[in-house]
């Protein structure tokens, strides 16, 4: 398998994962290119891995979390992310709920949000998420549980505030 063949097969899913993780087109492209450039530099290791796509996905997740750590002190999201651009795609109430859910997700810690994306978008089991993030499966379960609880608590609090 050549690098070009790998990107032809895996580039789109990696870019989609990067977009869901970052919520920003430019950052997603930058993140996917960063992970693939790392993969290119370590191409022998990638092709020798048992599951090359998972190996590169781990590079992408690590790069994402590393970026978030470095940028969190200087950059704060002020608007809805680019992923909120699907407003015209469905009924207003559902889209409003999605926007609210995006805002709730943006309030989570980067690791918590990443766990949810890997679990509910990439459909990875806890062992695979643990492998991608370099943590234990029990840490993944605990993080996911806390993240879901946090989302529900915040949503309930906001609903209570909106009530007349």
């Amino acid at each position, binding site marked *: 398998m050549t690098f070009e063949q790998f*990107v032809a097969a895996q580039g789109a899913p990696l870019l989609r994962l990067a*977009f*869901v993780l970052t919520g920003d087109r430019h950052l997603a492209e930058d993140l996917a290119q960063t992970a693939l450039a790392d993969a290119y*530099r370590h191409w022998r290791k990638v092709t020798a891995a048992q599951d090359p796509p998972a190996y590169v996905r781990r590079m992408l997740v690590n790069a994402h979390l590393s970026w978030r750590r470095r940028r969190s002190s200087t950059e704060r999201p002020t608007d809805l992310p680019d992923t909120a651009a699907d407003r015209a795609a469905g009924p207003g109430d559902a889209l409003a709920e999605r926007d*609210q859910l995006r805002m709730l997700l943006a309030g989570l810690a980067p690791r918590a949000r990443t766990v949810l994306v890997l679990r509910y*978008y990439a459909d990875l089991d806890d062992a695979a998420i643990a492998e991608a993030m370099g943590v234990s499966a029990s840490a993944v379960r605990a993080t996911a549980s806390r993240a879901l609880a946090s989302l*529900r608590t915040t949503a309930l609090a906001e609903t209570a505030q909106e009530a007349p």
Partner: protein
Amino acid sequence: MSTPTEQQLRELFAADAAGAPDPGGLAALTLHRVRRRRRVRTTAATGLIAAVVVVGGVAAVRGDAGPGGGPGPSVVADCSFAVWFEGTMYVAEALVRPPAAPVAELGEAEVASCNDTGPLPGGVARPETPRRVTASAYPGYGPEQVLTVADPDGVLALLSADLPREQRLPILAALQQAGAEWAAATD
């Protein structure tokens, strides 16, 4: 809103993924990035070697030495090329086509030294004895946004590290596009 369910998360992420950027050209852009970083590192390493020679020469004249009389600290060249110009740091983002018409020379910039790995500004430092290069303007952008520095293979475009994110990202994308076009023209 209602309390978020796992199904809602699945639907949200799937909807978001549908709006992801087009992956066309991803391999070419990635390979260009790898080549650009190699060129940039080569340029940075050349500058560092020059700086080390200068500093080493000064140290030798002063009789300085590391512990036990051996050499001083070693240097690892693994940063993006960066310069300081009028108090602002600019980081190399793309090797682009030299402008067809002469552009304004802005003055001398100081080449940053390298302290660790990675493309972010945290990896570079302002040396006490910097190498100096001529900074020029880049058509279409102000000197507070982008500078250029001559390079044997083209022109290095450097983006200000002080720009806010909303200004930086579109300029970065434009520079990377210009770099990809120049790489395609020179390959």
